[in-house]
């Protein structure tokens, strides 16, 4: 049964900057590389977990105003940072975990995405980093 409806509650923080009011979609995928561990005697393929390969994709309105989207992201390209998303506003709890990627890499930034008569949006992808879920209020 579908139980999660997102209206205006999720929180998006990139490099400590709150970009919640610039974000319209966020997908955080926790992933492990699958290593083939099949051996003689097995009757089906077996896998074991390799390195983590996490990814966070954000859809953001592009704004070039002071301390907005462009100012937040332009100096992060080619570097690592910490990103955090949360289903609803704090405090953290087991039912509202703060989902964090520490050391996530931003490889590219679309610096312009202009369409006549539309609000400009961009998709940015943070890859890698260590995943953690904060379930305790500070």
């Amino acid at each position, binding site marked *: 049964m579908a139980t999660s409806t997102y209206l205006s509650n999720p929180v998006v923080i990139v490099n400590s900057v709150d970009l919640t009011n610039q974000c319209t979609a966020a997908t955080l995928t926790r992933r492990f590389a699958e290593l083939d561990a099949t051996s003689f005697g097995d009757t089906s393929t077996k896998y074991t977990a390799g390195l983590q390969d996490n990814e966070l994709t954000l859809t953001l309105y592009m704004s070039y105003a002071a301390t907005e989207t462009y100012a937040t992201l332009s100096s992060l390209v080619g570097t690592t940072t910490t990103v955090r998303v949360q289903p609803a506003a704090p405090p953290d709890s087991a039912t509202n975990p703060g989902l964090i990627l520490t*050391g996530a890499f931003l490889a590219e930034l679309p610096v312009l995405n202009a369409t006549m008569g539309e609000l400009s949006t961009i998709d940015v992808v943070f890859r890698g980093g260590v995943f953690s879920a904060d379930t305790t209020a500070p």
Partner: protein
Amino acid sequence: MYKIVSPRIGVPGDEFVPIAGVNLDALIAGGFIIEVGTEKPKTRKPKGDNITTDKES
């Protein structure tokens, strides 16, 4: 020590305490925080008593 400038980070004027993995250079470049209190203390010049001069004989 860093101070918050933008309300997107926190309360302007408050000290910014970075969490693990935060890119401080990007925050400074974006105008979100400023670095304060990093000036080196000025060294005092020695007074006249300590100055020695060579005299020609």
